[in-house]
């Protein structure tokens, strides 16, 4: 049944599309404005590779708490830093940082009313461990 409907549909579409021109992907009518060759970056691709120190690794491990295997983590990090170092080839003198694309908008303020809370069940619902369905629990 599906095949029959499909055939019908194709016939229907062919009928409709015979009214419409089938798109010609080959013919180019005008001198193209699309560059036909790869365009290289205007900026140097120079990178800087940094060696992470023991202290830095220790600090990062404490700040991240993700327990990555150290050697691999350091390599991936150093790769990331090297990749990121390309930004140093760009001159940003007198350029202000773009913190948010909405920088020209003002922060909307909320009226001081109690509109939330009193949802203890919802707040605790996804906690794996609670104390008497009342407290969250952390190790001492």
């Amino acid at each position, binding site marked *: 049944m599906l095949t029959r409907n499909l055939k019908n549909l194709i016939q229907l579409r062919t009928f409709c599309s015979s009214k419409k021109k089938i798109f010609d992907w080959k013919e180019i009518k005008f001198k193209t404005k699309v560059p036909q060759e790869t365009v290289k970056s205007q900026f140097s691709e120079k990178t800087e590779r940094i060696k992470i120190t023991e202290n830095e690794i220790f600090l990062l491990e404490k700040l991240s708490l993700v327990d990555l295997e150290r050697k691999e983590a350091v390599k991936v990090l150093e790769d990331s830093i090297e990749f990121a170092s390309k930004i140093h080839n760009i001159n940003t003198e007198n350029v202000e940082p773009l913190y948010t694309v909405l920088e020209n908008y003002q922060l909307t303020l909320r009226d001081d009313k109690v509109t939330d809370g009193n949802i203890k069940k919802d*707040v605790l619902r996804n906690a794996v461990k609670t104390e008497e369905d009342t407290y969250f629990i952390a190790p001492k």
Partner: protein
Amino acid sequence: MFGIIQLNLCKLFNRNLRIKTINNGHKTFSTKPKLKANVFKSVIGLEIHAQILSESKLFSGAKNTFASEINSCVGLLDAGIPGCLPVLNKRCVEAGVKTALALSCAINEVSMFDRKHYFYSDLPSGYQITQQRAPLAGKGSLIFPVITPANNSKPYYKAVRIHQIQLEQDSGKSLHDDELKISLIDLNRAGIPLMELVFEPDLEDGEEAAALVKELILIFNSIETCSCKMEEGALRVDANVSIHKEGEPLGVRTEIKNIGSVRGVAQAIAYEIERQKIVKIGGGVIINETRQWDAISKTTIPMRDKEVVQDYRYMPEPNLLPLHLNMNGNESDELVNVKSIQKSLPVLPQGLRDELINKYKLSETTAIIIVNDPVLHKYFQDIINSNQLRSPKLITNILINELLTTCNKNKTDLEKCPISAKQLGELIDMLESHELSLNLAKLVLQEMFHNQKSPQVIATENDWKQISDDKEIRKICEKVLGSESGQKMQQQYKAGKSKILLAIAGEIKNKTNNRINMAKVMDMLKELLK
């Protein structure tokens, strides 16, 4: 106007510059006497967190309250549930602006929020939203009186600079259960709005710090942006303390946390200064560490969780656009209007002290003491306002010396004193008209503590009214002079023993059960013995 003076003072003020006297009306500025070299100087900087009085929290609509059922005032945002975004409470911005204006701070038209990252079980998001880089308000100053009750020294004024005021979130609470070896986490407090006031290290000792906190509490009470209930954690004071010798650079500082009262501020800092002195004199080294004040042992102890490894990685909060304020007073519903908040500022403590001094001609010390205690101040206002002719000096005298004593005797706090201003007013009138002597007035005061009766009624009932009528005094004097002992004393007086007058007066005093106007007795006797 006052703000401008303070700002100009800030420009002059430099920690190393001694201000001998600055003539600002009546106020006398001074610093401690110059210390000898080799003696330690102490430097104190306070960081104060004040919970804002508002209905709801800083970024969520959950209730801002103390001591509620566990985890009942928590929105999903406060629990760090993913996908929830912060929305800023207008009232908190207004409170921050009002506080900053009261402290003569420069208000920043545009301010931004940052994330301060660290892991802790009472911080569900793993970061606190604060304003580190571009805070709500910048530099300001506060001038306040320092008066130490202990040695009753002459009060002096201290100027302290404010570095910045920022809005930020409070964290939740973790309660340690030693038995189960777990921490129980209650997030009711998570997200409650705080103002952090960062002061420059311009203070020199614990008493100055306590006085600063006292002044702040007075200001907060008048502008109603913070309840200041230190016992509820609504006002938290951390002190940075260091010592150094004259001419040497600043010493390593320690941070003192967990101070729970104004007295505690003075005590904790005094203790820490001494502790550091002892260490240094003994050849030791001060470690840059956080210590907590233990009010029971009255010592500071190093805190267990030492943050040896820390970098807060401040990052602009991407979910909050820059906060704009309406600075120039034009109508705008959405933005917080700084000019109208400025207009709504009540008279601040210094203004109240100025009023007492200028309008009522009270001394500086008296003005400081009265304003320092809002209950006393209210009494004063009520009493003077119901009768402008009353002597301000007498009123304050009674309030400071007698009322407080009576409360102490009855083991009652001044706030709970049952004596009404009306009663006190009448008592003062009776003193002024010499219907009562001071000693009898004290008795009446004690009586009034236990009942609502007016002083007139009490005095009459107990027959404590002072005899002040001239005719009656003459009669009594003549009677005593006419008695056998009286005549003898007369002769002694006429023989040249002028001091015998006191003895005669003393007899009159005894005979009338100390209920006679002694000044008038003396005058009368002199007249009669002429």
